[in-house]
């Protein structure tokens, strides 16, 4: 019993220590973003006090970059890509799970190439294509690329779940004269947990991406939040107030999404991994 107690205590000690390592740099950033310059350098570990509290950094941010616009762009790109991923992937997954047809296995394999091969390696081709299609510096270009990037894993996860839907249900609907499209709509709510997982694991890579916005949509009107933050941080590198404020604002959206979707995210990571 004694040794069981000490093993629990040491487990807590290690996990607590690592939690501090994981969270401290983030907290330090947030805390200091609310302090004046003197306090940032003089007592970086202290919480802001009434004497040291300031919103200078956030004001610099508001006056020198269009963060509302960047935020809106990120939101439009992420939300549109996710909707497209969920619609087209669930349709494809339904076909792969439901019907026996020639090329079924081949199509599944073809779609799964993208699970392991990063889409980035085709960037030179993507850049040429977006130039030809006049999609450079448009949000549509980003949306279509992120949709293509998200499809492989989404189809893979959704196919697995759609196979588990009982056959009786679909056959009953067919006897009642439902069309195949109707049956797809009938199945969709039944795989809601899987759709949630796909949503959660596809969301952050799109929101957090720097590569494609940097290469395909660097214009002021189409900058995403991460690209906007990156440019801003580079320009204001010596203005600690502004940099810390920008970092804090950029931390908030993913943390917010994480708080809402933590369960789906964890399930999604596991579902994608069980191959």
């Amino acid at each position, binding site marked *: 019993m004694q040794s069981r107690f000490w093993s629990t205590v040491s487990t807590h000690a290690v996990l*607590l220590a690592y939690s501090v390592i994981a969270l401290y740099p983030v907290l330090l950033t947030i805390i200091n973003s609310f302090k004046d310059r003197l306090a940032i350098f003089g007592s970086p570990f202290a919480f802001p006090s009434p004497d040291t509290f300031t919103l200078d950094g956030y004001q610099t941010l508001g006056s020198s970059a269009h963060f509302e616009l960047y935020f809106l762009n990120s939101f439009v790109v992420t939300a549109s890509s996710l909707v497209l991923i969920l619609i087209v992937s669930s349709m494809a997954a339904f076909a792969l799970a439901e019907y026996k047809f020639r090329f079924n296995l081949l199509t599944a394999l073809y779609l799964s190439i993208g699970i392991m091969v990063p889409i980035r390696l085709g960037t030179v081709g993507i850049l040429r294509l977006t130039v030809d299609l006049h999609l450079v510096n448009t949000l549509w270009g980003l949306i279509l690329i992120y949709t293509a990037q998200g499809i492989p894993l989404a189809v893979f996860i959704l196919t697995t779940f759609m196979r588990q839907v009982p056959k009786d249900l679909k056959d009953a609907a067919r006897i009642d004269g439902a069309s195949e499209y109707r049956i797809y709509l009938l199945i969709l709510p039944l795989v809601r947990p899987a759709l949630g997982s796909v949503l959660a694991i596809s969301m952050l890579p799109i929101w957090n991406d720097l590569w494609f916005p940097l290469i395909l949509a660097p214009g002021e009107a189409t900058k995403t939040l991460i690209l906007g*933050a990156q440019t801003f941080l580079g320009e204001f590198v010596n203005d600690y107030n502004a940099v810390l404020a920008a970092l804090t604002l950029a931390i908030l959206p*993913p943390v917010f999404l994480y708080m809402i979707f933590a369960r789906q995210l964890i399930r999604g990571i596991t579902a994608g991994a069980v191959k």
Partner: protein
Amino acid sequence: MRKRGPIPIHILVFLGPAVLIYTAFMIYPLCDSLWLSLNNKGINGGQIFVGIQNYLTLFSQEQWSRPFWNALRNNVLFFVIHMAAQNPVGLLLAALLARRIRGSSIYRTIIFTPTILSVVIVGFIWKLILNPAWGISRTLMTIVGLGNLDAPWLGLESTALVTLSLISVWQNVGIPMMLFLAALIRIPDDLVEAARVDGASGWKIFWRIQFPLILPTVGLVAVLTFVGNFNAFELIYATQGALAGPNFASDILGTFFFRTFFGYQLQPADPFMGSTVAGVMLIIILIGVLIYSFGWQRRQQQIQF
């Protein structure tokens, strides 16, 4: 029985959108890029087929080969540090979380937090913390008694790459942790309980029972780390810039690829050589994935039966 004849129209309707978008924006550009890597600028400005000449240039012509081998060497070290630090730490944390102590879901949530942040933001946070002008790292190192070891790690050629690798480890340790944890939880309680009743220590139970059962996940984590590392870019770009300083000490294939096809400062953009670098990265990643799926995964299946 396979059905013969044309595929029913509704199946095409279901598959069409996904296959079209995926083909147009992923597979076609990848193939286009591979094709470009076999071409180069002709004398009249047009495009001519040159076979594997670009690859030979990349491997052996001083102007290309020096940065290429440098980036590849750095990338290998980047990967080795992840394998040596990120995955064992992830496994340790998962093993502790699997003990189902009180509050373990809170620990799990906290430790996973850095993983959800953008690499750009993580890079900048650490850049500030390690900046001697702010002095955070010096103060913390002094507290634990290592004050004399403090140095501008990101600015020194000898330490920049290792420091960046460890920042990346700090951010990504949550992924192996989650995967290992999911695998550990799937192990039936009876197995572990039976061993405990027989008097086996926690250490012995872990290495003799739990670890062998999660070997498939070990392979998966390794291949995911491999693909992620040989495709990395953002962390280096955000903290050190496209030139991956100091003096290219932190240059990896992703940053080298970016400079080559996009151009940077005095270096003109070169889509042909850029595609060639991407081609090499693709080959490296495919080799890793093939070793995993045909070597590791197949052997695991044999063990299971």
